[in-house]
């Protein structure tokens, strides 16, 4: 279950890196990519939540869930701004990406460590 979540979130991160290129160039990111990115991330986070609620393992990955959830709030904010043609604050996009990457690193460290 955690592996599935990691795969989904990793794919979301790859698409996120593709989109941040557009944001840094002050161009509109393709909405198709944004939707797939968001959907993959949401599914990954949902699976992590289900895991945390149902597993009997000691480490329930609530910490990773919290990091990804924080990143998701930033993502929703960015998407709602972008779709209404409001300027996306570049720093929010960068922080959103950094939190997501940190979360991926964090969960990988705990799974492989």
């Amino acid at each position, binding site marked *: 279950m955690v592996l599935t979540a990691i795969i989904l979130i990793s794919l979301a991160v790859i698409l996120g890196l593709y989109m941040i290129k*557009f944001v840094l160039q002050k161009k509109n990111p393709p*909405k*198709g*990519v944004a939707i*797939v990115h968001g959907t993959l991330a949401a599914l990954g986070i949902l699976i992590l939540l289900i895991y945390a609620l149902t597993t009997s393992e000691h480490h329930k990955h609530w910490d990773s869930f919290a990091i990804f959830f924080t990143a998701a709030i930033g993502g929703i904010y960015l998407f709602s701004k972008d779709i209404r*043609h409001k300027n996306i604050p570049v720093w929010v996009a960068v922080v959103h990406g950094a939190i997501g990457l940190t979360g991926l690193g964090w969960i990988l460290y705990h799974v492989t460590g």
Partner: protein
Amino acid sequence: MTRSLWKAKAQKTNYPALKNNITVDVAIVGGGITGITSAYFLAKEGKKVAVLESHELAGGTTGDSTGNLYKMVDKRLHHIQSKWDEKTARAVAESRAAAVDLIENLVKEHEIKCDFKRVPWYLFSETNKKDETIEKEIITAKDYGIKADTLQELPIPVQVSSAIKVEGQAQFNPAAFVRGLAEKIDSENCHIYEHTNVHHIEKGEDHVLSTQHGTVTAKKVILATHSPKGIYPVQTAIYPHREYAIAAKLNSGDYPDGIYWDTEATFHTSMRTFKNHTGNYVLVLGGHHKVGQEDNYERFFEKLEQHARKLFDVAEIEYKWSAQHYKPADGLPYIGESSDDGIYFATGFSTDGLTYGVLSAMIFKDLLSGRENEWAELYKAKRFTPIKSAKNYIKENINVAKQYLKDLPGKAEAERFYEVGIGEGKVVEVDDEKWAVYKDETGQVHCHSAVCTHMDCIVDWNDAEKSWDCPCHGSRFEATGDVIEGPAFSPLDKRDVKSRKDS
């Protein structure tokens, strides 16, 4: 190119464009039947009104409609009754009947030359598969005091399994009505501006509408533009469709006036007759589809023509046109004040827009004058009907999400500009961006971003109308990028044709 019978037969208009800054009580965006009828009433109430029409009066959906007026609805009254309740269906029928009566009174009072006449409405099934629908409509009609006669045959050459006739509905030339009524508006209180496109609304206590050469400041704004201009939550609850029409001139055959609706045809849904000094015509309408989600749009006209020629002695197809309508999630239009204070809209009319347009004006007249209106609550724009809307809402918004997926890397229709033929438009990917590329008859290439300026969907080429149509919320743009209709304010962003893809 397409051309509507109504616009061709109606008198021309010649209102000026706005060229200065003005302040009024009510600014109305859109000079169709909703906008002009609202302006007529509000000016009569003593309000200072400005009508801002981006093209010419009745030049949009009103002039491209069927010209039919009826108290029934596209989805049938029994559908409203089952989705809502008997009281609601009755109120819908009564409110629509009041709107048709009002049009008749306005035509008589001002002697508007728009060929208004009372005609019967027919509903029929060609085979027994849909006899049940007819039965239901008979029962529903009786419930609401509508006299429906059952028939075994129609006065037009269509074989039927069952049919009903309801007398007292109406037909007119909607463009002639709107242009005629516009001339009768109190000119002291109302100014009409044509070729005046509103490209931005600054919302506030006083709203400021920006046009190319002037601004309009108003406390109240009516967006009589079908789907409201800009981004509103209601756009997740109205679903843009197009429908096609042809006017076939007949060699022979003189059929009685009437509105003829086919219950079961998957394609041709209605017919009506039209006569003038040049001869007899039959209008065949149908071919509903979601905006911007088809290929080869010309085939809709071809199928209508085939159908007309099968039934009638057709000399030629003199006019062909198409129009947009928005189907509402819960079956009723949204009329009233939006989530923004002082901004009103009327939308989600389905194919029943002429009657609902006038009904909207009746509601706006009262709401903007601080009076109660008996139907305002029924059609309230801010209503929340999750159970009644859920099925359509989920289905249609999943469809919108799918349309966004057209904006994935590598998903373009052509790789190079030379793949775009003369008179054709295609979406080409240039530097990680989708471009809407159109090659006109002279071979000149027109390039724009293919990203809709409303909510960023990728537009689709419509070969029948030579337009770029947005599959998400129905914005439409000229081949050269200018806005034709829909919620988008701005034209498609221009792109420089000098590109390596051009080589």
